[in-house]
């Protein structure tokens, strides 16, 4: 059977009118999406010269259309069909799966919640079986990054329990931390568990980024860290070192100084100026 030719409708500003997809029907969209994500598209050629990510054009199209546009809804239904197909084909990995998962990492698609929640639950139940079912750890990790976007572990949400289980697994703890919160404030209640699970060779570098991002986003770290006084001492020290490295005031050392200083004043009767000077010197010592 001859495939129906696609006619794109381009607006005056050079952007694509998403309704031209809607007009073609979901069967055509499925075939187009499968080919496009596999790197082959005569209508919207993918730029292999610059190593363009095949999903990039679709992400732009969906963001431009908005979640409520009928074309976006059609594409979302097709995405779900392809995810179901990938599940049936596993452990075979079709060429479109990786770009499809990257698409799901970048655009929230309500319809895919159950699919990602099921994969998340299966991974939390038995990570090794999940890895085997998807052929390799890399594909499973791509699925879980997409699950962060589609099935995050907000308070009282159903995916939260699975993310909490994964927080204790070294291979998945950083993904779980992302799944449990986007901001530093949201991540904070889980930071100590993450620190314990994260392989030692990775955790300082990852903590450095988490602090960088909190500082960069101008999150009020001091007020958040006040709730973290029970953190393990090596985590508190590491946070202070990162704060210092990024030009912010170390928090826990200052807490120690003020508490230690006040206690000493009560107990020793030594001069306050002397104690404060001593505390400052010991805090500066390497």
């Amino acid at each position: 059977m001859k495939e129906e030719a696609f006619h794109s409708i381009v607006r005056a500003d050079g952007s694509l009118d998403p309704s031209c997809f809607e007009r073609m029907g979901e069967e055509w969209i499925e075939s187009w999406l499968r080919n496009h994500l596999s790197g082959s598209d005569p209508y919207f050629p993918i730029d292999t010269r610059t190593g363009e990510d095949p999903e990039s054009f679709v992400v732009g199209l969906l963001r431009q259309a908005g979640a409520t546009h009928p074309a976006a809804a059609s594409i979302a239904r097709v995405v779900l069909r392809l995810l179901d197909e990938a599940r049936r084909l596993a452990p075979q990995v079709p060429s479109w799966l990786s770009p499809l998962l990257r698409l799901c990492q970048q655009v929230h698609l309500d319809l895919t919640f159950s699919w990602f929640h099921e994969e998340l639950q299966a991974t939390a139940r038995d990570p090794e079986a999940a890895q085997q079912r998807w052929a390799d750890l890399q594909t499973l990790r791509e699925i879980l990054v997409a699950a962060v976007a589609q099935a995050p572990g907000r308070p009282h949400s159903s995916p939260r329990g699975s993310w909490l289980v994964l927080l204790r697994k070294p291979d998945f703890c950083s993904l779980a931390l992302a799944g449990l919160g986007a901001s530093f404030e949201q991540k904070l209640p889980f930071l100590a568990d993450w620190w314990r699970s994260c392989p030692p060779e990775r955790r300082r570098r990852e903590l450095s980024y988490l602090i960088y991002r909190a500082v960069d986003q101008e999150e009020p770290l001091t007020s958040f860290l006040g709730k973290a006084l029970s953190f393990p001492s090596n985590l508190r020290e590491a946070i202070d070192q990162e704060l210092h490295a990024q030009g912010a005031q170390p928090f826990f050392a200052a807490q120690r100084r003020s508490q230690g200083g006040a206690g000493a004043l009560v107990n020793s009767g030594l001069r306050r100026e002397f104690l404060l000077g001593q505390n400052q010197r010991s805090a500066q010592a390497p």
Partner: protein
Amino acid sequence: MLENLQAEAHLVGNREFGDPLELAAFLRRCAARFTAASDPAEQHRCYEEACKEFSGRGLRVLREHLPERLLRYSTSRTLLGLLAEQLVGEPASIDLRLGFLSPEKACDLLAAAWDSSRLSKGELGVTPQVFATFEHPGATSRDDALAMSQALALPFWERPRTSEEILFELAYPTDSVDGPRFPTVAEAGWSSLFQPAEELPPETEEPRSCCGWTRPLGPHSAQPEIVHDNASVAVMSSSPRWIGRIPV
């Protein structure tokens, strides 16, 4: 694309400049595949398959015709994510994928953490042969994403635009990659913005004959271009340099 096929003079494989056998073989392969193609999508697939088969068969570019450093322009957030995962850590890579970390800031973080000896995953491009350019007198500004993308006639200018296009630059020593060749219609694939190199034998005294040159869009000057074998990102001599977003 027909004009480009007619103008192609550097698809010679390992033969000398002027030898027509390789181009003839490419055209025969296209014709044979097209016979079986029943619709435009199938014709497109057939053409791309023929192109893949004949990629990396342009005339060899002599090492002495190239500078010490090559530049490659990329739009791939996936590549940035892979670099971030290895050098900045998994949370940064996740944030970049989810859109919490902008590609601009990812480039800053990569610059601060740059250590190419720690890179074991990722390649410069996604095809066996990748395009590269280099600095030359009168080149378009390397800091202007719009101008550079038009000077390179990047294929996303052929289609309706979205706000997702970004551009960053990879730099690496010429000697760290193999197989520099003239780009041909086979590497260009379905893109009509490609311009085959002029039908001139390579002469050191005539720089325009020593590599391919883009057919720029707009008022920008043409950029030199070659293709070479894809290589690990570990060949990069510095971190990816952020150029900018391409305005819609």
